[in-house]
């Protein structure tokens, strides 16, 4: 009984301590509404990108501040808003909840749970728009992000704090690379934020269940603005995602941000801008579409220790139409990022998956962060692949080739075979180094090109069963004459065993 009395007492105390305060709110009136855009009179003190409260608990963002009116985009449903409605200022710049509680959840760009779980209660808010860290707070990349994909980790390495673009036509495996990278971060001390912009809900559901299966949701936040959401939500989604990432960076942690994909965000921004009657430019995009992406990707950084450390690695995705990288948005984003991973339909249908075009894919800064063991074998791999590409075109016309050329060609074919990798099967660095080393140094020359997949599988099995200490060394990035000799011996031993 006493507990009831206690509760009543507590309640009474709470109520009596409640102070009345009368609010003076600045308001405006809707004079025009439609297509997710509202124009209001009044709101004379409104700030740029301030949140506005519409009736029915709907929020909007003021984007156009004009002499007589304010133009705003409405986040969410706008069908109940009508002319003459009162709009209140909130005095807050658009911000999203941030915190540990978000990890493992699927949220919308406003940070509300959409995975059917409990509502997320968070006190911390970060503004969606934030100026990127300055020159003095940064340092060059020095730690790698292991994607677990042989072709990328060896030839297009990505460092923590880098911005690496994934570009290609539809259905070439762009998302697959991003998801594999997230899956491979298990136990690697990297928090992942996957921002889905304008994707099908079914695809998101599939990705989330895949991540759950692989145990990757333990360190991942999924921000979803699906194809059925309004353009303003699609536009805000990547900024919301990076704001959530910045919270972790401010605690000195490393974060990986995937924006899948920025083409759709640019479309959403174009739609909004045209409705707000901003003048259209090339391909009907507004004049500041470059700034739209540059200010987002500039927030990816690696901060130095004096400024708290931490990093945000960005993996933006761009979808091209029929391989046209000279369109407006692809050229913009290529010029902003520190390199690109280029995926091609041709390669995809030839069975080379991931369908990387190694010739034009680059990473401008990642090699500084590559592990020593990988760097040693990757250098030779790059040269061999380049020679192979050159010879391949030439060999189509020649009937009989000299043995030297033939050898080069066969090596190239074998390398192409081992760089193939099925989806959702990321590989540890040690395994990658050992297989590339073995093939480059001719240990696979006796195997048929068509049987390389089997050869590789057996090789990994052999290494993992009997050479675990060597793999550990390679995983840690160790490389010396001694390690190389051990690796050589291991390859020879495997060959002997394989021949039996």
């Amino acid at each position, binding site marked *: 009984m006493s507990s009831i009395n206690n509760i009543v007492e507590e*309640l009474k105390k*709470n*109520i009596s301590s*409640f102070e*009345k*305060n*009368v*609010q*003076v*709110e*600045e*308001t*405006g009136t809707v004079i025009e509404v439609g297509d997710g855009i509202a124009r209001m009179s*009044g*709101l*004379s003190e409104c700030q740029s990108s301030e949140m506005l409260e519409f009736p029915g608990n709907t929020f909007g963002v003021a984007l156009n501040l004009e002499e*007589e009116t304010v133009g705003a985009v409405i986040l969410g449903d706008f069908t109940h808003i009508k002319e003459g409605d*009162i709009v*209140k200022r909130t005095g807050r710049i658009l911000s999203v909840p941030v915190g540990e509680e978000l990890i493992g959840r699927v949220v919308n760009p406003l940070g509300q749970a959409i995975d059917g779980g409990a509502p997320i209660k968070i006190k911390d808010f970060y503004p969606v728009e934030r100026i990127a860290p300055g020159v003095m707070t940064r340092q060059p990349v020095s730690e790698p992000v292991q994607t677990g994909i042989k072709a990328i980790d060896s030839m297009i390495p990505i460092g923590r704090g880098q911005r690496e673009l994934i570009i290609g036509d539809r259905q070439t495996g762009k998302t697959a690379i991003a998801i594999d990278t997230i899956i491979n971060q298990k136990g690697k001390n990297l928090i992942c934020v996957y921002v889905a912009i304008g994707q099908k809900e079914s695809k998101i559901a599939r990705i989330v269940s895949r991540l759950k299966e692989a145990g990757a949701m333990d360190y991942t936040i999924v921000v979803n603005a699906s194809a059925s959401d309004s353009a303003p939500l699609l536009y805000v989604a990547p900024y919301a995602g990076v704001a959530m990432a910045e919270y972790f960076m401010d605690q000195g942690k490393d974060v990986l941000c995937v924006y899948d994909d920025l083409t759709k965000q640019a479309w959403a921004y174009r739609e909004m801008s045209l409705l707000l009657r901003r003048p259209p430019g090339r391909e009907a995009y507004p004049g500041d579409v470059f700034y739209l992406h540059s200010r987002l990707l500039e927030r990816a950084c690696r901060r130095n220790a004096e400024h708290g450390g931490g990093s945000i690695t960005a993996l933006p995705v761009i979808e091209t139409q029929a391989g046209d990288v000279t369109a407006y948005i692809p050229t913009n984003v290529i010029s902003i990022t520190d390199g690109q991973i280029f995926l091609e339909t041709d390669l995809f249908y030839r069975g080379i998956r991931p369908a990387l075009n190694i010739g034009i894919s680059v990473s401008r800064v990642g090699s500084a962060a590559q592990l020593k063991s990988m760097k040693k074998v990757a250098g030779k791999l790059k040269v061999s692949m380049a020679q192979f590409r050159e010879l391949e075109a030439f060999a189509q016309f020649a009937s009989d080739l000299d043995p030297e050329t033939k050898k080069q060609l066969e090596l190239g074919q074998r390398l192409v075979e081992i760089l193939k990798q099925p989806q959702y099967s990321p590989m540890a660095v040690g395994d990658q180094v050992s297989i590339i080393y073995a093939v480059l140094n001719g240990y696979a020359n006796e195997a048929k090109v068509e049987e390389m997949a089997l050869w590789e599988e057996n090789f990994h099995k052999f290494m993992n069963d009997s050479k675990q200490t060597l793999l550990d060394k390679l995983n840690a990035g160790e490389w010396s004459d001694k390690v190389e000799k051990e690796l050589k011996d291991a390859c020879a031993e495997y060959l002997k065993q394989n021949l039996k």
Partner: protein
Amino acid sequence: MKKRTDKQYAKILYGLTAGVKEKDLTEYINVFVNLLKKEQKIKHVDKIIKEFIDLSRKEQGIEKIEIITANKVSDEIVKKIEKIFGNKTESTERLDKSILGGFVIKTENKILDASLKTQLKQLKTNLVN
């Protein structure tokens, strides 16, 4: 040339007629109506007049307020409220049972909310958190 808004026409009219003697007024109005005719804005005239009234009120420092209460209040209280907003205040009153008690005052772009309903709402959020 960019189209003029109704507000801009109201400003033109205000500037045109400010300080004009009553007997000359017709002449000036004629000029303005001719302008409207030339720019094919005659059908906007109602809106322009409304804007003009708003504008001249503002220029003369007349504040327009709306007092919303749950029950009818005496004229004395209304006078008191008007005085707070300045000497030249025009007020309209409106009854709204849904605010339960207290009052809400609306000016051109501000809302002063001292209603019981809002305070109960605040109490609720205070208790929940």
